């Protein structure tokens, strides 16, 4: 038996509620961390960073954020793009206003500002539920984008309304702008992602996480057994927006470097992140990673395969890519509506039982 949890006994409740209760998983996690922090920075290049790794890390943060709101607290949101925009513009204003302050601080503050905005737009969730709420969050999406497009103060009165990230450093290492080395930007994002994932995991395994899930699974019952729905929903909006704000800030400052709000943070972005969450698995942090990886990789792989290897015309490849991505998404949903995370869980269950079925 390859994967074991039998014989892995816990002697205290602390141990039982730790992040990776099973030894095998725990070691896997350490190995992954070591590779991510020690090995990848050595081999990284611009293409890897800009086409794959940065978007993956950044989207994973957004996906964790949305997963908290949608997967754990059950509030479907289509406003992710708008909230990412808040993070991006917040960090832009901060970076340009206080150039000497560390980017760490700016990004965190941007998250905080987004959290506040998130709470504001989360208020209607008290009355509006399910899909109606999903569509209501679109109001946030469109309104925020419009505001950033409209109010010149946000883009420092630049002629075109674009914002672009000036060069900033962390302890002397440049991490934004074109001169930032790939490994530095990568590590910066990775640190945020790791921290976000750990915080998310801590929140979801404790009482806050349980209030969220209770609201998700049956809000009336939750309220009757003592969950304050206002507090539960608003903390979910706040925490979720905090993460999404961070990801928006990184998306702008480290990944794209220049942003046009309607284009970069439009409704498509909201859908994309929601997809990541769903393909990855609602209510699973691991799923957020898996979903982000899948949807960042897939188009690139398809493109490289179609255009570069088979040499097909780019438009056919682009069309086929839509067809394939669409088909794969639906296929995934059909095969495993609970996402990659569930697939992984089932695989583990099978492994555990192997070679004896049932």
């Amino acid at each position, binding site marked *: 038996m390859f994967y074991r949890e039998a014989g892995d006994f816990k002697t205290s409740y602390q141990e039982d509620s730790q992040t990776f209760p099973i030894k095998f998983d725990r070691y896997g996690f350490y190995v992954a961390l070591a590779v991510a922090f020690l090995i990848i920075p050595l081999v990284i290049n611009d293409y890897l960073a800009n086409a794959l790794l940065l978007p993956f890390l950044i989207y994973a943060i957004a996906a964790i954020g949305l997963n908290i709101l949608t997967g754990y607290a059950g509030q479907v949101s289509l406003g992710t793009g708008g909230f990412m925009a808040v993070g991006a513009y917040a960090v832009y204003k901060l970076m340009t206003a206080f150039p000497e302050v560390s980017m760490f601080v700016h990004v965190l503050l941007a998250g905080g500002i987004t959290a506040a905005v998130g709470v504001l737009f989360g208020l209607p969730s008290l009355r509006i539920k399910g899909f109606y709420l999903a569509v209501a969050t679109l109001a946030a999406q469109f309104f925020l984008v419009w505001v950033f497009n409209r109010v010149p103060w946000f883009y420092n009165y630049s*002629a075109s309304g674009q914002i672009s990230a000036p060069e900033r450093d962390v302890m002397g290492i440049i991490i934004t702008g074109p001169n930032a080395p790939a490994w530095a930007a990568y590590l910066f994002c990775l640190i945020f992602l790791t921290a976000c994932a750990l915080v998310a995991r801590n929140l979801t395994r404790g009482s806050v996480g349980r209030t969220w899930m209770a609201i998700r699974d049956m809000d009336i019952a939750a309220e009757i057994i003592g969950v304050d729905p206002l507090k539960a929903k608003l903390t979910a909006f706040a925490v979720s927006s905090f993460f999404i704000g961070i990801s928006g800030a990184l998306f702008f400052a480290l990944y794209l470097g220049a942003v046009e709000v309607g284009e970069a943070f439009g409704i498509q972005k909201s859908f994309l992140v929601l997809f990541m969450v769903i393909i990855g698995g609602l209510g699973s942090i691991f799923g957020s990673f898996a979903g982000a990886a899948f949807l960042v990789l897939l188009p690139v792989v398809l493109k490289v395969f179609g255009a570069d290897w088979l040499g097909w015309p780019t438009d056919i490849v682009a069309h086929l890519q839509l067809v394939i991505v669409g088909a794969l998404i639906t296929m995934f949903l059909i095969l495993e509506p609970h996402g990659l995370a569930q697939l992984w869980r089932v695989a583990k269950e099978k492994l555990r039982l192997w070679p004896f079925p049932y």
Partner: protein
Amino acid sequence: DLVFPSLSYRTGPFAAGGIPFADGYADYFTMLNERDGGIGGVPVRVIECETGYNTEKGVECYEATKNEGSLLYQPLSTGITYQLIPKVTADGIPLHTMGYGRTSAAYGKVFKWVFNYPANYWNGASGAINHILELNDGDIAGKKITLLYHNSAYGKEPIRTLEELSKKHGFELSLLPVDSPGQEQKSQWLQIRRDRPDYVLFWGWGVMNQVAIQEAANIRFPMENFIGIWWSGAEPDVLPAGEGAHGYKALTFTATGDDFPVFDDIKKYVIDAGKAAGNGDKLGTVQYNRAVYAAMLAAEAVRKAQEIHGVADINAAQMRDGMEALVITKERMAELGMEGFGPTFEVSCENHGGPGLVGVSQWDAKAQKWNLISDFKPTDGEVIGALIEEDAMAYAKEHNIELRDCN
């Protein structure tokens, strides 16, 4: 070989403009390869990469192609241009945004790697006002001019210049943004009906063009007072409105029609040979022609670079030198089979934007063709120059860029 990535968009909301442009760009290089065996004996390789007009994909395309020995980027999108400006500057690859992108990139002292000759959006704005001035014998004080624009970086570009010009000439400017993609413009046109502006200037792209022209025809706005930028004046924009579009004007920095020898060569060596990038039915249309022009400018810069550095297989830095030393003369255009197709100009270290000569074309619905009704004329360099310098300096300050010494 000489590598030219083509960041094109044959899908998505702006495919209508993206397809002919991508075709023209590729076909011209194919023609050079077939006819001349490349440029200076070195074959040209075009790498097409689909962006869908999407900035993220644009960045991905850039990163994927930049290590292929790419000489020049033309993303055909103001949005992508903004992402690429810092990147090409860091990587040392020239970027040519012909008639789009960041206007102040014309300021070569700050934007070493970016070029936007022969004309930019501020030239466009000024050119349109000049045309109106001409129609009104130089006095447009008190006239009402409305700018109907794509609510994006692209559409907002002319605002600053128009504001300056309205101060200078005393016309009243009002702004009407339309959100992308712009299929619904009813309110904007009802507003135009109410305000009765004397002229409507128009910065649109994609479906927005077609709808605007249709709506203008619907409310019977006098078409000759409706003037679009060069990206809003192609065949697919006017055809759907039929007769109604007759008289609509669009600015341009290229000639119209396929009456130039270069197109015969393209037909002969590319389309008839079955080597066309697309269906081959776009030749002679506005955007196709403009792409041929863009490709021609690139090829000329290569020649210049080969001349300067004495190597045939040039690199990106050499390409940049070629672009900065580019001189387009009447004679050279004639040699290329494109006499009078575009303005003549010179690029310099300070000025990456060319002279900003702008012409006006008008749609003839009966003949179904665009006619050039005004030659390529200079625009208000005084106003524009000052604005460009101001904006470029602000950028330099924000990004800690040291001015180049151009002497």
